[in-house]
Structures are given as structure tokens and as C-alpha cells.
């Protein structure tokens, strides 16, 4: 796989039984890349390992005063230099390719899983885990998978160098091999402690960043009412804690580094001691002593790769476990609805929408308004009206569209027939044009929808706010979640988007709660006109909207208690009047009493 061919046409089906399985699966997906990386790594390390040989040969040649052998050593050095250079560069290329392809594959898997989870992601744990995997875990997982081949190369080469040394000069070779073993055994147990400290430090740093981001996010509140010093002090404390924790981590690393200097140093002293005596005894040539000295210095290099792999593995295990867990998530209603297949074709979206649990009946082709005494209950009702709800109705009664249970239709079919716009619809970032580009019936033009939702001032504000785009507001980028827009503007854009979709049944939960009365009354009129002949349900308590509905239902304690046109209910039903005119009972008695 080349980087330029990414993304994968199909990222495959991962083995998500456990983190370990997942890592193995990822590794298996790039066996070719791993083999290449192993081969180049071996070339690189072997060349570097053999350099001391050339140095030793050169020194020996000089000692023996042989210009010819010096030239030979030079040629060997050129060859090894070329090998090291090509090996190092290609190792890096293959290793990075392995990392990038593994990371891209996991990102793709994650994107697919996330898209299919949909509303299930409103459960916070799931959402947090997905984000954590995509922001931090993938890098570690990719690193672990990638470093496997480099580790193997390092192991291979250091074993062969040790073997070479032993074969070449058993006494010194044995000394070096034993020394290396001790070094590895001393350092490896120190690594987990260092990584634990690093984890703690990261956690504290995350906390400090969170505090800073939170302070900045609420800065307008702070500047408006005070308390800056309080929050600064708090952040200073967190920031100093991060510093302290980082220094503690550094202490551990400093110790490890000192050990990494001291132990090989001792080994070098031993080599000089033993080597010099062997040389004076005539058992070792001078050049060979230099070679052994050089080889010991070299061996520290693969040793670092061992350490790196040990760290990569210990770091990435929890990450891989979390990634596997996220990739194994399923849509909340999948189990429930998979039990009743086969009714897909029977759905008749042009019929009445009926919820037996509450008695809410939205007549086909009409604008029905529902007034709920309790706002949370309204949200649950809206969710249920769309079918495949996260919280199924208590006694298992299913919402029917044209007499067919929505839950029996596949999720996509149900969502096509009924669009529920919840209380807090999210505007995805992009241009206004992209925002309005949603799967739709194609019968409502974007301009018409924007006009019906009274988005004129939003368009004007967008055109004004960005000079570069030649005043075409449709091409202006809206920031993430539309944060640059006011609550009312966001609500109207969301409504326009739902109108563009133009579903057979549209359920709107408080679509104009943040819109001022002037605009709201215009939206209500336009909504009735643009949805003519289509089924629409609006959950609201605004008289301006209710006044435009064909039929109004009052739902109290989960059941429909009154129905009729707005003006009639206003005059005949005291409960209704109390809810929509927002007078509390006391105020009501007060007012009637004084009148």
C-alpha cells in the first residue's frame, strides 16, 4: 500500500475481540509493509554495526603502515556508508508508510462506525470514547504496529553482532553479550515507571488545558461580572502542577539516561581492560580492539529500539482496547428492530401518523401542533414519533405510519419517511450551500426554504461578515456548530434545512423557541404554506405558531386531553390557556381576581 492510494476503498472488517486481537489484525493487514521495513532495517543496522570494522581495519592498516589496506578500509567504509544511508532512508520511508496506513485504516473504520451509530452517540460515554480514540489512541496504535518490524530488525542485528563477536573473539564477545543482557534487564523494569509518570503528567496537562479552554470559553462571563483573578490563580495552580509532574517524569528519564551512560561505560572499561591485556599478550590486534570498542558503542543503538517497542506496546495496549471497544459498538435499536424484518416495502408514508401510547394523531397532509405540559415529555414524544427511538414506549406500543409500525421498517426507510428535528439540531460546519445539501425530495428549492424560515438577516450577516466571497452568502463558511451565529439564527437555518429535506412527515420540536415574536409569526405562516399537502407535527407552546396549525392537541401526563383549533381551545380550555399564555396559576387567579 502506498500513501498516495489512501484512503482504502474498503478498510476491512477488524477483529475487535480484544485490544491485542485488534493490534494483531492491523499488523496482518500490512504484512508486506512490515517485511519491507524489516529488510531495510536490517540493512541499515548491519551497515552501521559493521562500521567499527572499517574503523578497526583502517587503524590496523595504519599501525601496519599499509596504504593499500587503508584504501581497502576506505572502500569498505564507502560501501557501508552507502548501505547505512539507503537502509536508513528506506527504513524510515517504509516505517512511516506503515504508520500512516495503519492510522488511516483505523480512522476510516472509526468514521464508518460513527456514521452508523447516529443517535446512539448522544449517550455520552460512547461519544467520549470515539473522540478519545480518534484524537490520541490512533497514533499510539499505529506506532506500536509500525515499530514491530523495526524491533525485529534490531533484535536480529544485535543478536548477529553478539554472535559475530563471540565467534570472532569468544572472551570479549561473551563479555559484551553478558553486559548487554544486564543492561537490558536493568533498564526495562524502569520504563513502566517512567511511562506511568508520563501518563500522570499527560492527565494533569489535559486538566490544565481543559481549565484554560474553559476559562477562555467563559471569558465573556468573567469580563462581564468579574472573577478573573480567581480563575487565573486556579489555572496557575494547575499549570504549576503540570510543571511539577513533568519534572518528576524527567527525573525518571534522567535516571534512565544516566544508567544508559554508566552501564555501557562500565562495559567499555571492561573491554579496554580485557582487550588491552589480550593485545599486549598478542592475542588481539590493535585494530581489533578499536573494532570491539566501536561495536559496543553501536549496540546501544538497537537497545534503544527495544526500549521504544516496549514503550509503544505498553502505551498502546489500553488505546487498542478502547479502539476495539468503540469499533464493536452497535446502534441502540439494532437488536430490537432486527427481529422484525420483511415489512420494509409495506410502509405507506402518505398515511396518518399515530402514536397509540399518547393518542397523538397527525392527520395526513395537515399541520398538527402539539402542546406538551412538560418539555422533557415533548422531547421523548418527538423522538418516539420518528420510530426506532432510543427509549421505546413503556408498554411496547409502536408508532404507526399509514397503519404500519415504523419500527418494523429498516432504520433508513423510517428516517426517510419521517424526519424528526430535535430541540437542539446541530449545524454541521461548511458553507451554507453544503449545509443545505442534504438527502431530499428535491421539490423544495434552498432559496424557498431559507425564505420560509426567515433567514434573510442570516444571509445578510454572512455576506457582510466575509468580504472575500463577493457577497454570495451561500458560499460563506459557517463555523463549527454555527457558533458565530445567534441561537435564533441557528434555529432558523436548521428549520430551513428540514424544509429542504421535504420528508413525507416532518416532526419539529420547539423549532422557534429562540426566535423573536415578529419573526416567529412570519415563520408560522410560511411553514403552513410550504408544507401544504404534507404531514407536519410541531411541538410548541407559542401562540403565534399554534394559531397557524390546522389542529392543536394538548398532551398532559402523556395523554392527549384536548384537541381543536387554537382560538377555540384558548377560550374553552383553562389548562390550555395556562400553558400557552405562560401564566402560572397564581398569576391567573390574581389577574381574574383583580379584573
Amino acid at each position: 500500500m502506498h500513501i498516495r492510494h489512501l484512503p482504502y476503498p474498503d478498510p476491512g472488517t477488524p477483529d475487535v475481540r480484544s485490544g491485542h486481537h485488534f493490534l494483531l489484525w492491523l499488523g496482518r493487514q500490512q504484512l508486506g509493509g512490515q517485511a519491507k521495513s524489516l529488510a531495510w532495517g536490517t540493512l541499515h543496522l548491519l551497515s552501521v554495526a559493521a562500521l567499527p570494522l572499517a574503523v578497526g581495519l583502517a587503524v590496523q592498516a595504519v599501525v601496519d603502515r599499509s596504504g593499500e589496506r587503508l584504501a581497502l578500509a576506505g572502500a569498505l567504509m564507502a560501501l557501508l556508508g552507502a548501505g547505512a544511508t539507503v537502509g536508513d532512508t528506506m527504513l524510515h520511508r517504509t516505517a512511516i508508510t506503515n504508520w500512516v496506513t495503519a492510522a488511516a485504516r483505523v480512522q476510516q473504520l472509526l468514521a464508518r462506525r460513527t456514521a452508523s451509530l447516529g443517535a446512539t452517540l448522544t449517550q455520552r460515554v460512547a461519544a467520549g470514547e470515539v473522540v478519545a480514540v480518534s484524537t490520541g489512541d490512533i497514533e499510539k496504535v499505529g506506532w506500536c504496529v509500525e515499530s514491530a518490524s523495526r524491533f525485529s530488525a534490531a533484535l536480529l542485528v544485535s543478536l548477529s553482532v553478539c554472535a559475530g563477536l563471540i565467534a570472532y573473539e569468544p572472551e570479549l564477545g561473551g563479555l559484551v553479550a553478558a553486559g548487554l543482557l544486564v543492561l537490558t534487564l536493568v533498564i526495562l523494569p524502569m520504563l513502566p515507571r517512567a511511562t506511568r509518570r508520563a501518563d500522570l503528567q499527560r492527565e494533569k496537562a489535559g486538566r490544565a488545558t481543559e481549565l484554560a479552554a474553559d476559562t477562555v470559553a467563559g471569558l465573556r462571563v468573567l469580563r462581564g461580572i468579574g472573577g478573573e483573578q480567581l480563575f487565573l490563580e486556579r489555572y496557575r495552580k494547575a499549570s504549576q502542577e503540570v510543571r511539577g509532574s513533568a519534572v518528576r517524569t524527567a527525573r525518571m528519564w534522567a535516571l534512565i539516561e544516566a544508567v544508559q551512560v554508566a552501564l555501557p561505560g562500565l562495559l567499555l572499561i571492561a573491554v579496554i581492560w580485557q582487550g588491552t591485556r589480550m593485545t599486549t599478550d598478542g592475542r588481539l590486534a590493535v585494530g581489533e580492539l578499536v573494532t570491539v570498542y566501536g561495536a559496543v558503542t553501536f549496540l546501544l543503538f538497537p537497545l534503544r529500539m527495544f526500549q521504544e517497542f516496549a514503550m509503544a506496546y505498553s502505551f498502546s495496549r489500553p488505546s487498542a482496547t478502547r479502539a476495539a471497544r468503540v469499533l464493536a459498538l452497535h446502534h441502540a435499536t439494532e437488536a430490537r428492530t432486527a427481529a422484525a424484518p420483511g415489512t420494509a416495502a409495506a410502509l405507506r408514508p402518505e398515511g396518518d401518523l399515530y402514536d397509540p401510547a399518547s393518542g397523538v394523531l397527525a392527520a395526513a397532509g395537515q399541520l398538527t401542533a402539539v402542546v406538551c405540559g412538560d418539555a422533557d415529555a415533548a422531547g421523548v414524544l418527538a423522538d418516539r414519533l420518528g420510530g426506532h427511538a432510543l427509549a421505546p414506549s413503556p408498554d411496547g406500543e409502536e408508532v404507526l405510519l399509514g397503519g404500519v409500525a415504523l419500527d418494523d421498517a429498516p432504520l433508513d426507510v423510517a428516517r426517510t419517511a419521517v424526519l424528526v428535528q430535535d430541540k437542539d439540531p446541530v449545524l454541521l460546519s461548511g458553507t451554507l450551500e453544503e449545509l443545505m445539501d442534504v438527502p431530499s425530495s428535491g421539490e423544495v428549492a434552498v432559496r424557498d426554504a431559507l425564505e420560509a424560515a426567515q433567514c434573510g438577516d442570516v444571509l445578510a450577516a454572512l455576506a457582510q461578515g466575509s468580504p472575500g466571497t463577493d457577497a454570495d452568502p451561500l458560499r460563506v463558511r459557517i463555523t463549527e456548530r454555527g457558533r458565530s451565529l445567534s441561537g435564533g439564527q441557528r434555529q432558523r437555518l436548521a428549520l430551513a434545512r428540514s424544509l429542504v429535506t421535504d420528508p413525507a412527515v416532518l416532526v419539529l420540536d420547539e423549532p422557534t423557541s429562540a426566535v423573536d415574536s415578529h419573526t416567529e409569526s412570519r415563520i408560522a405562516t410560511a411553514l403552513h404554506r410550504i408544507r401544504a399537502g404534507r404531514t407536519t407535527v410541531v411541538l410548541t407552546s407559542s401562540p403565534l405558531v399554534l394559531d397557524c396549525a390546522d389542529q392543536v392537541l394538548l398532551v398532559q401526563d402523556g395523554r392527549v386531553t384536548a384537541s381543536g383549533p387554537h382560538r377555540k381551545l384558548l377560550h374553552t380550555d383553562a389548562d390550555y390557556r395556562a400553558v400557552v399564555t405562560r401564566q402560572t396559576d397564581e398569576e391567573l387567579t390574581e389577574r381574574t381576581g383583580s379584573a
Partner: protein
Amino acid sequence: MIGVAPPAYDPAASESVTTLPVGTPATVRAYVRLLFRRHRRAFVLLVTVNAIAVTASMVGPYLLGTVVEDLAAGVEDIPLERTVALFAVALLVQTVFIRMVRLRGAMLGEEMLADLREDFLVRSVGLPPGVLERAGTGDLLSRITTDIDRLANAMREAVPQLAIGVVWAALLLGALTVTAPPLALAVLIALPVLITGCRWYYRRAPAAYRSEAAGYAAVAGALAETVDAGRTVEAHRLGARRIGLSEQRIAEWTAWERYTLWLRTIIFPTLNLSNVLVLGSVLMLGGVFVLEGWISVGQLTTGALFSQMLFEPVSLILRWYDELQVAQVSLARLVGVREIEPDSGDGALSPDGRRMQADEVRFGYHEGADVLHGVTLDVPPGTRVALVGPSGAGKSTLGRLLAGIYGPREGEVTLGGAELSRMPAERVRRHVALVNQEHHVFVGSLRENLLLARTDADDSELRAALGAVGADDWADGLTDGLDTEVGSGGVAVTPAQAQQIALARLVLADPHTLVLDEATSLLDPRAARHLERSLAQVLEGRTVVAIAHRLHTAHDADVIAVVEQGTISELGSHDTLVAADGAYAALWRSWHG
């Protein structure tokens, strides 16, 4: 064609909307100088311990050289014990000082990093409210998260490591020159290769790494948005499009990975080649020199080992120099905040009384595009004024002017005869508070969330404030009481409760004049109704300017001002306006039936 061209799409270009200034090179330099001055002692210490460690590390090769020299000369009684003892002492010194170098380096880096992030927040919380209101907090937010993050590595590693690397390389070169001056010449052979490669690389690398990082962040960003919008994605059947977007981001990011990989495909061989060139030319030239009798075998051995040691500091310098260049951009963004004029209020200005007046006020956000066209409004103390009117008419803008956040372009807004916009923000807020839809609940305890309004309040006062806004029932129910952690990650707070916290802060801050900008509009109507009742109690006796989108709020006000197209078109009490039969009256009829 050999090589990879930089991808056409640059994710770093559209990374964040820059609404605040980015530091000029002069500001950045001045700040870096300041930082260095503050930490001069730590720097000197780091360089010193590093020099000792490096010098000690050169003893080994030197000793090996003498041993080789003696062996080659066939000396019989080599002072082996003395050599080994010297080596051991040097090793001890090196071990101790290497540990110190590493530790001191980290301490220095961490201190500078802490300074940097704390300085930035100090500057940020001092920004004039008008700047914040205009620029929004998005840009600041990305600076304190993304840019600080990017700088972390640079400060924590790059600065100390570069200091270490430079000292190290210089000492090695010096030692090489002292050991065998002719050998130092050999190093020069590799220099042109190294310089040419580095120049090519550094001209391209910093920008490329920035784009690569931005591209990677965009991949995570697209996914985070899909997660955040889960319900919307499902309702609108946007799943396939979100997957498509994620894959497009992946393609954009990996294109940059491919490009930076190509850059390294040049710099890696350059580095390796110069290393081999140095070692090779030291050995070959040195060998010839020995054969010619200009230097000894021992000098050659030591020199060869020194030149081999050069590889590490050189790659250290190259590696971290990279990081420093990337960090420079982030640093410029962080210190850019210093270029904003701090709130330059006139400390001597103090209101005399509570009467609020706007006189022929004209104001616009952009040159030549006024939002308000000559608004005059007189608000006597204790009056409740409601501003109503269609979206975009200028209600919120007028509210912000009345709260002293912006100063008018023409005309003036005064409180007790003193011009609001010329007072420092800290003074304005003792008198006037603006409450908008933004009910931020800070990460932290409920106590901290309230204390910000009056830092010296005790628990009974905090409880009383919660009681005044009707929040005592749920607040008392919290397991840890006032110590309960709220905000993101803590106990979830409903929008209504967040609103109550905001109001409780107002009770504590106790300003005599309030500007309410659709403060309850994001709440569901039923919760809003209860809140407005508690609000009414809090507001008793105060001057209130309420931007209302619900007519019953207007109905209860003493004066209603209908704002249309940047002017006040109708002004009077509810009954007067209904009798006048204008726009307000029409709306009221449709609202109330």
C-alpha cells in the same frame, strides 16, 4: 519526475478564523528576549553542566587513543590500572552530569512553558469586553489549546536539546581540533553537503509540518463533529456523506504526510552521508597523515571516535531546529494577544447617580455600515424597559452599547452623566451587568462558579443567592453541596440550572442596572416561565433593559421600545402602544388572541 510537489490544498490555511492579531516578528523577538532574560541563570547552569558532561564523555576515546598509541609503539608496561581508573572517574562524572543535564533541561523547558501559557491566560483575561464580543472566543480557544500544545514540545524539548546539541557539537569540534588540527580539516569536506541539504529542507519543512498537523487535526475534527451531531446525522441520513468527508480529510492529510516524507527522503541521506563523509575523510586523510608521520595513531583513533560522536549532536540540532521553526508560528499567535491595546479606561470617571441615557447614538460594526441610526433613549433609575423588534433590527447592539461593551461611533451613552465606554470594564460592571444567552458553567465546584461574582462571599451568602433564584432545592440535593464539581466532566447541569447559576452570580455581584439579552431564550418555555419569576424577584428595584422576544415580558415592562431598522419606531407603555394600533399592537393581538 522525481520528488513530490506540495499538495494543492493546505489545511493550515483555513484552520481557524483569525479574529485576533498575530504577533509581528518584532513582538515575538521581544518576547523571546524577555523569556531568556527571566531564565538566564537556568540557561547558564544548563550549558555549564552540559559542557562538563560532554568533556567527560571525551575521556574514553582519548584514553583508547593513548592505549592504541602505546600498543602500536609496542610499549611493554602500559599503565593500564591508571587508564582504567581515569576512565572510571570520567564515567562517574559523565553519569552524574548527564543526569543533571537531562533534568536541568527539562526544568528549564517546563518553566518556560508554564510562563508562556500563564502569560497568555493573564493577557487573555485582560482583553477588553468589546474585543471579545467582536472577535468571539473561538480564536482564543484554538490558541490556548492547539498552539500551546504545539509549543509544549518545542519548549519542553527543543530549546534545551538545541542548547545541549550546540554546546556538544562545538566542544567535539574543539576537541578534534586540539587532538589533531589537520583532522579538523576533514570535517570541512562534509560541510557543503550538509549545508546544501539543510537549506533545501528548511525552506520547505516548517510550513509543510504545520499543514500536516492541521490536516491530521482536521481528520479528528470531522469525526468529532459527526459524533457531536449524531442525532442530526441519523435524522437527515447524512451517514454516507460524513464517511465521504472523513475520507476526504484522510486523503488531504495523507497527501501532506507523503510530502513531508519526501522532504525527509532528502534530509535523511544528507545527514547520513555527511556523517559517513566526516568519518571516512578523518580515517582516510588521517591515515595518510599518520603514514606521512604528521600525526600519531593514537591521535587518529581519538579523532575517528570523536568524529563518530559528532553524529548525535548534529542530528539533535537538525531535529529540534525543525520543531522550533514550527513552534515559531504558534508563538506568534500567542504573543499576538499582547498587541491588543489593554482596556484603557479613564480611572477617574465615575457615575453620579443611576440615570442611563443614550443620546443620538450611531454605531456600526463595519466602516460605513451603521446598525444604529441615531437612537435616543432615557432610562430613569428603577425603570423596566423592554426592547422588541424583528431579528437584525439592532436590539442586541443597542443592549451592548447600554452595557458599555462598545462605544458609540457618534453620540454618547452615559450612566449618571459619565460616559460608559470611557470607564474601565472593572468599574462598569460594578454598576451594569449584561446577561445574554451564554450561561457558561465553569469546570469546577459550584462554589467557584458563584464566587467569581464576589470573591469574598461566604457560604451562607452563596446559599442565600441560590435561594433567591429558586435554585436551593436542587443545589441542596447535590451530594457534595457547594463542593460538587459542575461544568463539563462534572455533574450535568440542565440549561435551566445553568441559567439559575448565572442569575445567582448576578445576585452576588449586585449591579443596580441590568441589560438582559434574550437571557432565557434557549430554555424551554416552561422552565423559562419559572425562571422569569425568580428573575423578577432578583430584579426588584433595579433598572432593567430587557431585549425580549416573548411578548409577555414586554407586557410587564414600564416602557416598550420597538426597534426597527436601527431606530426606535415606537416608544411607550404597553397600553399606549396597543391603543396606538401600530406594529406592536398587531403582534400583541396575534399573540394573545
